[in-house]
């Protein structure tokens, strides 16, 4: 199989795998309690995976971000958190400020 097709098949499989949970949720709705321990474990694993992915993307990036020093990325994260609270808990404001900080640091200091 050509590589492009393999990728599309993989994405379709991931889509089907994701729908499995959504569809199963409809089938089981009203019959099981969504706060039971199994779901708490599922939530823990999901949050740990996403947080792990994010920490890896920021600390050990691949691609274009390897060109930036870790200090810039850390400062941009701090700027984003500060802007989030200064903007009245605004996700958009915080993220925009962080991106601007990273670009400005890279532009100013190379």
């Amino acid at each position, binding site marked *: 199989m050509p590589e*492009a097709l393999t*990728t599309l098949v*993989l*994405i*379709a*499989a*991931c*889509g089907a*795998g*994701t*729908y499995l*949970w*959504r*569809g*199963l*949720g*409809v089938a*089981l*709705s009203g019959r099981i309690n*969504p706060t039971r*321990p199994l779901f*708490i474990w599922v*939530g*823990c*694993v*999901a*949050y*740990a*995976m*996403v*947080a*792990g992915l*994010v*920490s*890896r*993307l*920021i*600390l*050990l990036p*691949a*691609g*274009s*971000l390897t*060109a*930036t020093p870790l200090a810039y990325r850390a400062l941009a*994260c701090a700027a*984003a*958190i500060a802007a989030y*609270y200064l903007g009245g*808990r605004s*996700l*958009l404001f*915080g*993220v925009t400020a*962080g*991106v*601007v900080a*990273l670009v400005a640091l*890279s*532009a100013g200091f190379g």
Partner: protein
Amino acid sequence: MGAQGCAMIAGRLRCCQRRDAIPGLRCGRGDRYGCGAMRMLAWLPGEDAAREGAGDAVGVAAAVMFAGFLGFGALAADTGLSVGAALFSTVAIWALPGQLVLAEMSAAGATWVAILPAVMLVNARFLPMTVSLMPLLRAPGTRRVHLYLTAQLVAMTGWAVAMRRCPELKPEDRLPYYLGFAIACWFASLVGTGAGYYFAHAFPPLLKLGLVFLSPLYFFVMLACEVRQRAWLLAMAAGALLAPGFHLVSPEWSILTSGLAGGTLAFLVIRASGAGDA
């Protein structure tokens, strides 16, 4: 597409319920299958509720979706995914964390044996989410097949809004409201994915840097500032600490293994401390 456009889609779907509304789509016996498919979609009774839902989405929710998927599009371009694959993943998966996992793991050289279980695990949260959402959306006359179609549009943003907003609505208005909201968000995601991919190629390197950083930063702020439950916080800390180390040992398995290890560790600690308050 604004509220108007989404309501138009909802309205058009509804038109199909009137058999003579669209010439050529009459429900004769000979046309059972084509019309059946149309009718399957044409269940929206509340055009106004759908418009209201779409109107609620246009604004902060759609902007947040757009920004999130803008970052995903840029990251997908940076990791070497094709634009078709990036857009297809937004249609087929429509869950940002799962799509990021997919893009990152493919870039790290993982095969489907690691990618599929990782994407399924990170998206397994849809099961409890759908379980808790569906009883709210279901009105006395709602057909099950419509709930199964709606399930594809269950995602974090719409779920959180619907859980808060739907109890205030009449039961028969809830499903159209949710669909209006979710379709508007979905459209913003699709446009964001394409725009992010395009800009990552079109922008000068410095601005591209900002776009590629958008996705990690978006989740960093969201997780650090908007998650409250102790179990989730503990799981995130464990995952964030374990992942870089695991990555150095085995880049293609690190997301799956550090998530399983960190999540299970947090779960056990929370259970042992006797506070199942997640």
